[in-house]
């Protein structure tokens, strides 16, 4: 700590940090543009000018840029100095001379940092008489809109897109007052993080194209704190609703998780909530040859109550994309032994293995923020950009840790971004990527390895052995792999914070065990390693913690083919789950046909709901509350954003209604979410801490709830005036300490309840500054979420010994391995129109040499038959993947037509029209 004097008053500051960040942290309103807490300082905009004085005697002082000046003990500065004020006002005037006067029709209006700063510095009247410079705009694809005339040349966009996120198709062009930020030519932005431009740009150059489809001003959104449901990382979001439709997602800063950024899947996937495929009313069919007929909620409950009362033998199937509470409620309804996890046996094993490793082993699972701090990384088997996109962004920062130490030695502070980059040039910390095929992180990889999952696992085991000889050796290891393993081991051991990343992407337990072995070997030799697993769904780990047998067993139970389990069933309730995404279509068909009653509770219709006898409309994440557990093992609460129309309600409420109607009630019915959460926490070991994920529904501040509507919310009394001039009473919310109104506690609630970032004078996303103790650091009051899983001290667990043998090509057969896509692989986001446009189309990937052998070229039609189900043939265009190991073929799993195909699996590939060799 150091003391500086700001306008003659002493303040404690962090020595060496830049003065802008320190002033903002102290609560001063010092305007800025080019500086960004995550991107650092570059001194371009000159907006943060202050006066610095040599000492107490110096009355003259000189103008310095706060963002470029380190805080030193005894420093004397002035923000109020007239010369500094004048200079800051001039900066705004200069920025505004070319800026169009289009605020009323600009999407950024009302949440524009430029607008805020203009007001803050007091620039009001225009003196410039010249013409404004004008630009062409580019079509940057379906996600981001481009309006270059509004640009103020702060360079934040390129610094985020290129320097921070590694995008290469976007840059600064031309010079002087004509600098153009764009692509080399029109075209969709290639980066998976392009949507962050919308928030990074301090004005309206980059705006959300999906929002344009149903535009609403920031002050008219009803919002609530939420958690992204499109992968397992649990990024915090702020979804915004107006007139019953969900209209956009903004980042909700969580210093431990997503920080300032989201991936495009998370930002744009929300539109599935507005999909025509939403289930909005209960429906029933009496006869499977008839279509589903809408019925009332009462009828539906009545019907099901009778079913249950008639002694039907029922089972429930949960879901990794439904909340803890929803899963738990279904489990309560059917009874724990009749509750099945909504995942395949394969996925279930992978999840159980990860839970076991994280809970029983010595390696800790890091938060995303901690991933950024790692200084040597091995990625084993996971294509993180496609399976856990923000993890890729975090890894891109981790490679800067070691070079940053070089810069520190040269006395260049970490925040002096361009100076650090100029000093370290191409230097980067170690990042090793072992994956099935090429990944989008390869550009920053130190070394890469490509292989089928078993070989990736072997590499991992070899690394573990190289680190700790007590770990079992890998037999028949080729020299190249041994050398690579040694290199990786050396780099990890030399690091201060080594990290191993793996996950479910390979669908291979050996890969996960190998990753654990590496991390454990490090821990056991005195290197505190972290171990990060990517999981595919928003509650994969949470659902796994609740447990339940795997899906295939549910099938067998209904089909009566199960080995003795003591359970028989003829009725199934399926929670928020399309089973066709989990298992081979034929198996699901048989199962659904065999079940006498199929009940689906979900928000979106799909192949499974289409075959149900009863469908109950559930709320999406935006219409319900609940708890999700992310890949780190962090439980986070998401809150309802708006009240859905019709009979849509929380899945857990459907379960409760059925329990009540069937008269099978527990002592008391659950009246609100907290009661479900509490019951769950009490009965499931390990879930106890979820009670602390967020304040309960009866939490009040000064007797008030937290309002979901901002106090500038407009039209509340007029929105329904055409129907009734009496303003309707806002809906009650028994489940959350948030209200569906403007009324409520006007200041900062606990971070887990933050529905928006806004502060007087700070209408843009930068208002976040006012919610952090130290700007750029954790939220005041602590970053939301509670960790459920902590490691056991070193050395308790023996190494895994199940090392697979080396892959061997088979003549005429291919090992089909899974490939993943950020757009397309995940079921819900693929329904958002903007992302549907970008979604991967089905294909079969082959090594070019294999393809040549088969006489296939790019785009040719191939036919794939899996050994386990030769009757099923898939016709797929060929794509060449030089990274694929010979003898393997890549299948983009999870795409609608390919959903449910479990791989790795052996299969035959032929050209269409070619004879199948016998």
């Amino acid at each position, binding site marked *: 700590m150091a003391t500086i004097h700001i306008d003659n008053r002493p303040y404690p500051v962090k020595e060496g940090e830049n003065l802008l960040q320190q002033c903002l942290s102290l609560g001063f309103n010092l305007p800025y543009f080019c500086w960004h807490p995550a991107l650092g300082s570059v001194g371009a905009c000159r907006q943060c000018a202050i006066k610095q004085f040599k000492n107490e005697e110096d009355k003259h002082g000189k103008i310095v840029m706060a963002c470029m000046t380190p805080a030193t003990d005894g420093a004397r500065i002035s923000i109020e100095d007239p010369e500094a004020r004048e200079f800051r006002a001039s900066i705004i005037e200069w920025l505004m001379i070319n800026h169009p006067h289009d605020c009323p029709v600009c999407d950024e209006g009302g949440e524009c940092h430029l607008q805020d700063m203009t007001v803050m510095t007091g620039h009001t009247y225009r003196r410039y008489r010249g013409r404004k410079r004008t630009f062409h705009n580019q079509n940057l694809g379906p996600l981001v809109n481009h309006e270059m005339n509004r640009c103020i040349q702060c360079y934040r966009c390129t610094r985020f897109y290129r320097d921070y996120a590694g995008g290469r198709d976007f840059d600064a*062009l031309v010079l002087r007052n004509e600098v153009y930020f*764009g692509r080399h030519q029109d075209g969709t932005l290639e980066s998976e993080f392009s949507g962050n431009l919308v928030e990074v740009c301090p004005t309206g150059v980059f705006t959300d194209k999906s929002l344009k489809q149903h535009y609403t001003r920031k002050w008219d959104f009803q919002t609530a704190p939420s958690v992204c449901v499109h992968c397992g990382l649990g990024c915090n979001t702020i979804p915004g609703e107006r007139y019953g439709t969900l209209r956009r997602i903004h980042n909700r800063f969580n210093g431990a998780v997503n920080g300032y950024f989201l991936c495009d899947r998370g930002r744009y996937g929300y539109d599935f909530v507005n999909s025509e495929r939403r289930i909005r009313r209960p429906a029933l069919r009496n006869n499977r040859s008839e279509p589903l007929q809408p019925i009332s909620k009462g009828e539906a409950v009545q019907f099901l109550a009778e079913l249950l009362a008639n002694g039907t033998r029922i089972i429930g199937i949960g879901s990794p994309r439904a909340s803890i509470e929803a899963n738990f409620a279904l489990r309560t309804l059917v009874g724990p032994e009749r509750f099945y996890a909504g995942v395949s046996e394969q996925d279930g094993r992978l999840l159980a293995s990860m839970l076991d490793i994280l809970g029983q082993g010595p390696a800790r699972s890091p938060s995303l923020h901690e991933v950024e701090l790692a200084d040597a990384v091995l990625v084993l088997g996971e294509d993180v950009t496609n399976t856990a996109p923000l993890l890729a962004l975090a890894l891109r920062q981790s490679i800067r840790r070691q070079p940053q130490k070089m810069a520190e030695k040269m006395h260049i502070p970490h925040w002096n971004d361009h100076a650090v980059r100029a000093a370290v040039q191409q230097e980067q910390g170690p990042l090793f990527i072992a994956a099935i095929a090429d990944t989008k992180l390869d550009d920053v990889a130190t070394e890469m390895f490509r292989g089928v999952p078993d070989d990736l696992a072997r590499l991992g085991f070899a690394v573990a052995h190289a680190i700790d000889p007590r770990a079992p050796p890998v037999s028949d290891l080729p020299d190249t792999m041994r050398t690579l393993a040694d290199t990786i081991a050396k780099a990890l051991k030399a690091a201060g914070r080594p990290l191993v990343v793996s996950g479910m992407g390979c669908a291979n337990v050996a890969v996960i065990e190998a990753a654990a072995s590496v991390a454990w070997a490090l821990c056991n030799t005195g290197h505190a390693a972290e171990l990060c697993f990517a999981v595919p769904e928003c509650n994969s780990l949470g659902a796994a913690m609740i447990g339940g047998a795997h899906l295939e067993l549910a099938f067998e139970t209904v089909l009566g083919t199960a080995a003795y389990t003591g359970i028989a069933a003829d009725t199934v309730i399926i929670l928020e789950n399309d089973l066709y995404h989990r298992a081979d279509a034929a198996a699901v068909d048989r199962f659904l046909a065999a079940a006498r009653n199929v009940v689906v509770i979900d928000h979106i219709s799909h192949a499974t709901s289409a075959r149900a006898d009863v469908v109950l409309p559930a709320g999406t994440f935006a219409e319900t509350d609940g708890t999700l557990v992310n890949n780190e093992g962090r439980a986070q609460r998401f809150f309802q954003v708006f009240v859905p129309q019709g009979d849509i309600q929380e899945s857990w409420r459907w379960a409760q209604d059925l329990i009540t109607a069937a008269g099978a009630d527990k002592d008391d019915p659950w009246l609100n979410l907290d009661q479900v959460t509490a019951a769950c926490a009490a009965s499931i070991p390990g879930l106890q801490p979820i009670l602390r994920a967020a304040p309960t529904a009866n939490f009040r501040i000064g007797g008030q709830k937290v309002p979901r509507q901002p106090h500038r919310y407009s039209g509340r009394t007029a929105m329904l005036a055409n129907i009734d001039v009496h303003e309707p009473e806002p809906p009650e919310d028994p489940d959350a300490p948030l209200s569906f109104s403007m009324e409520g506690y006007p200041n900062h609630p606990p971070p887990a309840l933050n529905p928006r970032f806004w502060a007087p004078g700070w209408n843009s996303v930068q208002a976040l500054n006012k919610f952090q103790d130290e700007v750029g650091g954790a939220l005041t009051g602590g970053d939301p979420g509670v960790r459920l899983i902590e490691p056991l001290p070193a050395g308790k667990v023996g190494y895994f010994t199940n090392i697979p043998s080396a892959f061997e090509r088979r003549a005429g057969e291919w090992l089909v391995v899974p490939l993943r896509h950020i757009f397309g692989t995940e079921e819900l986001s693929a329904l958002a129109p903007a992302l549907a446009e970008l979604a991967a189309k089905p294909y079969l990937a082959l090594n070019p040499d294999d393809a040549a052998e088969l006489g296939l070229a790019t785009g040719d039609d191939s036919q794939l038959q899996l050994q386990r189900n030769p009757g099923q043939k898939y016709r797929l265009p060929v794509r060449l993947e030089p990274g694929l190991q010979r003898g393997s073929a890549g299948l983009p799993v999870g795409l609608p037509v390919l959903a449910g195909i479990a791989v790795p699996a052996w299969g035959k590939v032929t050209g269409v029209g070619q004879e199948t060799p016998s």
Partner: protein
Amino acid sequence: MLSEEEKQEIEAQSQHYPTTRALCIEALKIVQEHRGWVSDEGIADVAEALQMAAAELEGVATFYNMIFRKPVGRHVILLCDSVSCWIMGYDRLREHFRARLGIGLGETTADGCFTLLPNVCLGACDHAPAMMIDSTHYQDLDPDRLDEILAKYRMEEIREEKKEKRGPADGNTADP
């Protein structure tokens, strides 16, 4: 695709720089030398050869004024418009060009012979006004001198044309 010659020249330059990236300005100059200007295709070719992103290379190409991202005539006239030349009669020269060639700044004659570009100080201030045509400096200019110089280029053009018509069989390639 870069031509063999272009590739070789770039390769030769690579000895002067420790990184491939640093070669990009040289490479752009080389492509321009061969093709007259740097087209989108030129950008793509260099980007590919140096494994740079096209956007990044475009950022460089559009920064430097001696990289022409638009087509130019066979001869590029760089007329100094900086202060000493301005004092000594730049305006007159510019107007004279307009009268003689029918083009203003940034324009190319209809026959594609000349492009007229303004240029910053050529370091010939004691002999202002000055200009360069291609690689040749001309100093102490006035309208009469301009006419002489332009005539010289015109003559050369006519000679070139004749040479081309007569074909290489004529054998005489030495410049008189």
